[in-house]
Each structure stands twice: as C-alpha cells, then as structure tokens.
C-alpha cells in the first residue's frame, strides 16, 4: 500500500519526534555529571553534584516529606475512592450516580491553578494552617477522583452473576464485598493507587498554593531553586527522579501484567 519513499519519510518523522521528546531529558542527565558547573561546555566527568545533593540535609528532608505525602495521600485516596466507586456501582438511581460522577470529574478537568486557589480559600476559611497537613489534605482530595475512575471500569467488568452466586450460597453482603468484589477489582485498585502516587509526586500548582512558607515538596523546591538559576545539583536530582520514575512505571506495568495473568488464571479456574 505504501511506497518505500513515504515509509522512509514516516520513519524519519517518527525519529525526529523521538529526538524532540528525549533530547531535553538526556541533556539534563548528561550535564548532571559536568565538572564545569554549568549546563553548557561539558568539561569533565564528576559525581560532585550527587555528593552535594546527598549532603544537603534540607533537601533530603524535603524528599522524605514528598514521599510521605505521596504514599499517605495515595493510600487514603485509594480507600475513599474505592469505597466510593463500589457505592456508585450499587447506586440504583441513575440520575444521582451520573450527577456524582460529573462532580467527580470536575476535579480532574479543572485547571490546577483554580483547584489550588480554591483550596487555599477553603483552608483559610476552615482555619487550617498551611503546611504539611494542608498539602496532605489537598493531595488526598485531588487523588480521589482518579482512583474512582480507575476502579469503576473494573467493577463493570465483573460478571453480575458472581455476586448473585455468592449471595445465593448464603454469603452476607459484607462477605460478598470482601471475598468477591474486592479481590476481583484489585488490579483496578492497584492502578488507582499508582496513579494517585504519581499525581501526588508530580503535582506542583496545587501544592504551590497551599504549602505556606515553612513546608516544601520536591516540585515546589525545584521551582524555587530554578528561579534562582541553574544549579547542577538540580540536574543530579532530576536524574535520580527520572530513574525512580522509570522504576515506578515498569513496576506498575509488571504489576498490572501479573494482575492480568492472575485474573485470567482465576477466571479459568
């Protein structure tokens, strides 16, 4: 169907797009090893910036805070979101369910500046001091809708007969929930948790609004350092973060693949 000429052209185009996508990341990583101290003129290999990074206790504390916020907010959001999704699934009034889902999606499509600003007002009105707690609450809040969206499709994939069978065999509703529904939707719950985790780790705008002055997460810290200009320890930090992100992505893929396989086995049985 396609002539060789156009095939070469399309291959070339794809290569250019990939170069466009990866040059900035590679550039940043390469210069994290630059002895020259600038993001230009590579004058020699050094690990100094990594050493500087690891001796920067303030920054290490921020990394720790960021991780705590991410794990904790993802866990809470996953719990609330999963419960909400199951509740939505069993909601018989279609109008109510659709209304709730629309409200759910508002937080996903709303620009994060607006979310940040509105949370700032909310915390001020509620008298919650800006800092660790406000950031944590905000992260939980904006992660819940994404968990719901990851879990709901799994629920609709579940054969309704499975629940009927369990009930007919005398399982009380609570047992149906813990022994049938939750095991079935576990891949969705895991996906939701990972998405919440990455949302939290990645967020800048919302955190920036509700963080106050004493507390900082990595994104906010990178922003304020970058505003002062280039420092190669940020490059070193990015390189490490990039590595961690890759691990997370591949971990997620591995888990979801394994989850799919286990599910297939389970259904076959």
């Amino acid at each position: 169907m396609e002539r060789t000429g156009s095939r070469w052209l399309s291959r070339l185009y794809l290569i250019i797009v990939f170069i466009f996508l990866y040059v900035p990341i590679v550039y940043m990583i390469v210069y994290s090893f630059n002895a020259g101290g600038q993001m230009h003129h590579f004058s020699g290999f050094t690990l100094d910036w990594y050493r500087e990074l690891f001796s920067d206790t303030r920054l290490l504390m921020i990394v720790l805070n960021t991780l705590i916020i991410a794990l904790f907010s993802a866990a809470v959001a996953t719990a609330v979101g999963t419960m909400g999704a199951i509740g939505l699934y069993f909601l018989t009034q279609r109008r109510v369910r659709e209304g709730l889902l629309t409200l759910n999606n508002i937080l996903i499509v709303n620009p994060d500046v607006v979310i940040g600003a509105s949370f700032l007002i909310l915390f001020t009105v509620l008298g919650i001091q800006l800092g660790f707690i406000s950031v944590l609450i905000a992260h939980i809040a904006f992660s819940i809708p994404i968990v719901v969206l990851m879990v709901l499709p799994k629920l609709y994939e579940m054969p309704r007969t499975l629940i009927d069978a369990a009930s007919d065999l005398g399982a009380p509703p609570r047992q149906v929930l813990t022994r049938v529904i939750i095991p079935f939707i576990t891949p969705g719950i895991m996906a939701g948790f990972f998405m919440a985790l990455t949302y939290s780790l990645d967020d800048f705008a919302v955190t920036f609004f509700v963080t106050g002055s004493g507390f900082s997460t990595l994104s906010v810290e990178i922003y304020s350092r970058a505003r002062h200009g280039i420092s190669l320890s940020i490059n070193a930090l990015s390189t490490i973060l990039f590595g961690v992100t890759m691990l997370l992505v591949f971990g997620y893929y591995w888990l979801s693949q394994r989850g799919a396989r286990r599910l297939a086995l389970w259904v076959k049985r």
Partner: protein
Amino acid sequence: MTRTLKWTLLAPYMLWIVVFVIIPIALIAWNSFFDLEGRLTLDNFVRFFSPTYLKMSFISIWYAFLITFISLLVAYPTAYVLSRTRHKQLLLLLIILPSWVNLLLKTYAFMGIFGMYGLVNAFLSLFGIPAQEILFTDFSFIFVSVYIFIPFMILPIYNAMEEMPRGLIEAALDLGASQWTVIRRVIWPLTLDGVKTGIQAVFIPSLSLFMITRLIAGNRVITLGTAIEQHFLVTQDWGMGATIAIVLVLMMVVTMRFAQATPRA
C-alpha cells in the same frame, strides 16, 4: 448489597464531594464579589472588562490557541505513523514516558538548552549565527509548552486511529481514492473525536500554566494562570484572582462543550 452497607461506603466519598468539589467552587464564586477591603461589590468584574485584563485574556487565549494548534500539527502525523508501525506498544510507551517526568524538571532542562551558551545556540553557531537570548521570548514559551503537552495530544488521536476499522481505508483505496482523499475524507473524520479530546487536554492547561511563563518566559508572557497566581500569592487580591478563576472555569466549560464528542448514529 444492603442499604446501610451501600451508604456507609458512599458516605466518605459524598463528604469529599461536598467539601472539596462543591464548597471550593462556591468559595471562588463568593470571593469574586469582594474587593481588597472586603466590601461586597461587582468591581472585580468591571475591572475584568477593562482594557488591561481583556488584553491579557486575549493574549492568553491566543497563545493557548497557538500551542494547541502546533501540538496538533506535530501530533497528528505522529499518531498516524505510530498506528502503522510494527512495535506499536513499545513506541507508545516511549511516547508516554516523558509525560511521567516531573513538569518542573522538563521546564528546567530548557533553561539550559535555550540558555546563552546552551545547545541551541551552540548548534546555531555551527552555521555562523551569533548567540542570542532565546530564553525569555514568546518563542521559547510556546516551544516548551508544546513539548510538555505533545504526549497528551498524541495519545487520544492514536487511540482513535487504532479504533478505526482498517478495511475502510483499503476499501477507499480500492475504489480509486487517492492517498490524500483517503486522509481527508476517511481518516480525518473518523479520528475527529480523538482530535477533540486532544484539544481539550491541551488548550485548558495551556491557559492556566504559570510556572513555564515564570521560568522560561521570564514574566514576558502573562497567561490567565499567571494572573491568578499573581493575585492570590503576590498581591493578595483574592477577589480579582477569584474573578479570573471564574473566567477560566467558564472558558473550560465552553471548550468542553465545543470539544464534546459528537455521538455517531
């Protein structure tokens, strides 16, 4: 499922919806009616329709339009080629991967690349073009934004391409349509929903981003997002900030209406 169990499951979720979805939006709306001294007034809206703010909104929309348009221009052929390659899954993963890298870090990388002695100027000097400041220009702002948003444009279009029945293209070709006609009359209409989703995913965020304007455009470009951040965190004029936020939300609603997938018969 008993009623009690169902509502126990829903209770925390509904509480969340009330506290973190409904109340914040109401608070933004409420705040937009107050001025700096806390007086109830419509001043903020009057001010919004003054030349300064109208011009800013117009410029912001114009930039968002350019960013969306260029993203589409680059993304559409990419999605097309991608859907026709052999190692689809792997290549798709490679497209998604950069979108998992922290936004701030990607923006930061460009501070180096576009810098006075950065990659781009080094490249230009090969052709004898003298080094020039690329950072802090409209060009750098648009370029970096396109870079950041491109995966979000490619993905929905790619999905639409994948959903398209392959037989249709062959049928059109067999019936004598030229390549160009196939693209224009078959592929484009069938992937339009993906294009709309992509536009939605790029246009709204590019109206509201503020860190790129701060880091890359050096306050030369003021978007609606920058203005909101400025009012809330710098000048502390929450009323005006809330008013701009309302305008931004309205624009989002309009964009979504426009980009809503048309139901096919």
